[in-house]
């Protein structure tokens, strides 16, 4: 297990080792964990609470936070959601669904599993989906190898906060050999409350050997709500398991979003993850990959679109600790107005991880003078028989291309949108699901149409 545990950011601002009252104290649970919580989980919470106190708030000098300021988030004074929101009706979801998407649907409202909004009646054999609380209540040790184990200490203080304060979430368990044809949609719905609230859902996705699942994870809001999500997903893939994971973040322009995806891949397993980040005022995503067996493959790709008053940040941490694994990191970004995007991709190849095959690419299109992208691909290679590459580009729309379209009668604004969509198309088309690709394409097109290009 220690091989997968993560080095956490150590606090630089704890004075003399004495814990001060921290800005995140309000995020920590006020009461003792529910009775009947398994001891290993309580221990993990206690350790995480301890880490929150020592880790403190990352500053502009903290590794991984240089370009992602926390001031705006801290100013909101978020407190944890206390009561599950039961008032939502099925018809409230209508406008938020992906037209034409045929999926098993599991809905999370303000961080809590909402069975009455979910569609889980005809799950195929070998697939179980339920709430985190309910799963632990039924079998306290069902997740003992995964929950808080795959993520370990997590990438930073927000992972610790989630562990310390986790209330509910979703558990998806696919048995060995289960082949799930229809995608599973995990819809996070956030509703603004009178006070700014933070929800900290915790999900566990576990695929048994040879299981195959497509998971469409979406983030949506009712209206322009102001709130914060601080989510952690722990994903464990058994030998030769295959998970296609689509993540589409389209939250309200006032929302703060933090999500950490922690992945443990068994031998020969394949993870195919596509991240689409369009929404939120401030969004930080960490994708953390650890291999637990050889010949595993991990594809991380993404598309982000950041405009005025928006920051979108993706941090990748892929550790090749074992030989003969493959990883691909391919992120594309469009930044307009005074938008800001951050891409930080680390691929680490340990001394013994021979015949690692890794390729990272981050390409960005800046549509305005005020747009900013901070991109930092990092390869750290300690093995000598590897195939690794990385490339970064930051550019504008090619005048040649623009002129070609205009010379065919296409107005400049439309021509620019066509080129942006063309740039984004590689990632959108890779989504693989026609309904989802259409939905994302529409969202990107709509955003570009509204944006002053």
């Amino acid at each position: 297990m220690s091989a997968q545990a993560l080095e956490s950011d150590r606090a630089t601002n704890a004075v003399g080792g004495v814990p001060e009252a921290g800005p995140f104290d309000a995020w920590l649970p006020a009461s003792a964990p529910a009775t009947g919580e398994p001891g290993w989980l309580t221990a993990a919470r206690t350790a995480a609470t301890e880490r929150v106190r020592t880790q403190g708030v990352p500053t502009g000098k903290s590794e991984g936070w240089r370009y992602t300021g926390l001031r705006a988030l801290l100013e909101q004074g978020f407190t944890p959601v206390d009561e599950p929101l039961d008032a939502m009706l099925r018809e409230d979801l209508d406008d938020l669904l992906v037209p034409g998407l045929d999926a098993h649907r599991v809905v999370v409202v303000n961080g809590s599993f909402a069975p009455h909004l979910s569609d889980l009646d005809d799950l195929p054999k070998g697939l179980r989906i339920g709430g985190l609380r309910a799963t632990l209540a039924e079998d306290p040790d069902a997740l003992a190898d995964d929950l808080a184990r795959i993520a370990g200490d997590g990438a930073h203080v927000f992972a610790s906060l989630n562990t310390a304060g986790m209330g509910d979430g979703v558990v998806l368990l696919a048995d060995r050999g289960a082949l799930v044809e229809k995608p599973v949609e995990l819809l996070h719905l956030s509703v603004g409350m009178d006070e700014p609230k933070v929800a900290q859902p915790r999900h566990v996705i576990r695929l048994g050997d040879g299981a195959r699942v497509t998971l469409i994870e979406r983030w949506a809001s009712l209206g322009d709500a102001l709130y914060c999500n601080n989510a952690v997903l722990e994903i464990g893939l058994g030998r030769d398991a295959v998970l296609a994971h689509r993540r589409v973040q389209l939250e309200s322009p006032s929302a703060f979003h933090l999500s950490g995806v922690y992945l443990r891949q068994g031998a020969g397993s394949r993870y195919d993850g596509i991240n689409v980040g369009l929404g939120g005022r401030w969004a930080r995503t960490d994708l953390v990959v650890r291999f637990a067996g050889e010949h595993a493959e991990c594809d991380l790709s993404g598309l982000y679109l950041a405009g005025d008053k928006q920051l979108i940040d993706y941090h990748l941490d892929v550790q090749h600790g074992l030989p003969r694994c493959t990883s691909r990191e391919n992120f594309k970004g469009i930044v307009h107005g005074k938008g800001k995007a951050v891409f930080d991709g680390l691929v680490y190849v340990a001394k013994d991880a021979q015949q690692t095959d890794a390729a990272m690419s981050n390409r960005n299109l800046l549509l305005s003078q005020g747009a900013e992208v901070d991109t930092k691909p990092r390869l750290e290679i300690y093995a000598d028989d590897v195939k690794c590459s990385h490339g970064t580009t930051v550019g504008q729309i090619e005048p040649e291309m623009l002129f070609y379209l205009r010379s065919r009668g296409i107005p400049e604004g439309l021509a620019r949108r066509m080129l942006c969509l063309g740039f984004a198309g590689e990632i959108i088309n890779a989504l693989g699901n026609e309904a989802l690709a259409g939905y994302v394409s529409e969202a990107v097109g709509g955003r570009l149409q509204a944006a002053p290009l």
Partner: protein
Amino acid sequence: MLSVKGLKATVDDKEILKGLDLEVGAGEVHAIMGPNGSGKSTLAHVLSGREGYTVTAGSVTFEGRDLLELDPEERACLGLFLAFQYPVELPGVNNTYFLKAALNAKRRYHGEEELDAVSFLRLMKEKLKVLHLDDSLLKRPVNVGFSGGEKKRNEIFQMALLEPKLAILDETDSGLDIDALRVVADGVNSLRSPERSMLVVTHYQRLLDYIEPDYVHVLARGRIIRSGGKELALELEQKGYGWILDEAAA
């Protein structure tokens, strides 16, 4: 149709066109020939409205409108079409989507209803048949991974679809082998009509064996120094550009 008078244009403060006059009537095919660096492509680009060229003197009217004050897209909607010497690759932009956007932009401009997907596809099939083109080109991103011949055929296909009043073919023969040249020329010839004029810009006479011009102009040092019928092209083929430059200088 097109009237160019005393046109002077600079690129990076260097004067390329130095007082060019040209009259093109409806249905006429004019060839512009000339040595490298004479300003042929500059003329094509200035007419189509490409950025980076500054017109310092003269006028261009197209069907009575002052062409130089219009954006490239408006020129296109009015019926001007430039077949590029180097067609631009547009990664991720589907060729069919591109063609439909172009056609509908033009229809919108003229207050016509946009074509729906079905009517558009029917129209495309029809045009493809006339040009003997393979429809696999339509499913790919615009010009990406196309061979030189495919790119040029795609240009002619766009021309067929957009039905311009004046088509400017900028070095359409460059980079084509003889078979590809014949296919492209056949396409162009099928689009000749009494209402459609063409300006064929070329360095070599070869193209004019296939696309027969009504008039041939020699462009050198930014001016048209000689005009004539198609026999002028043959004379240039035999004697090169040297004699005509010498005569003009004399």
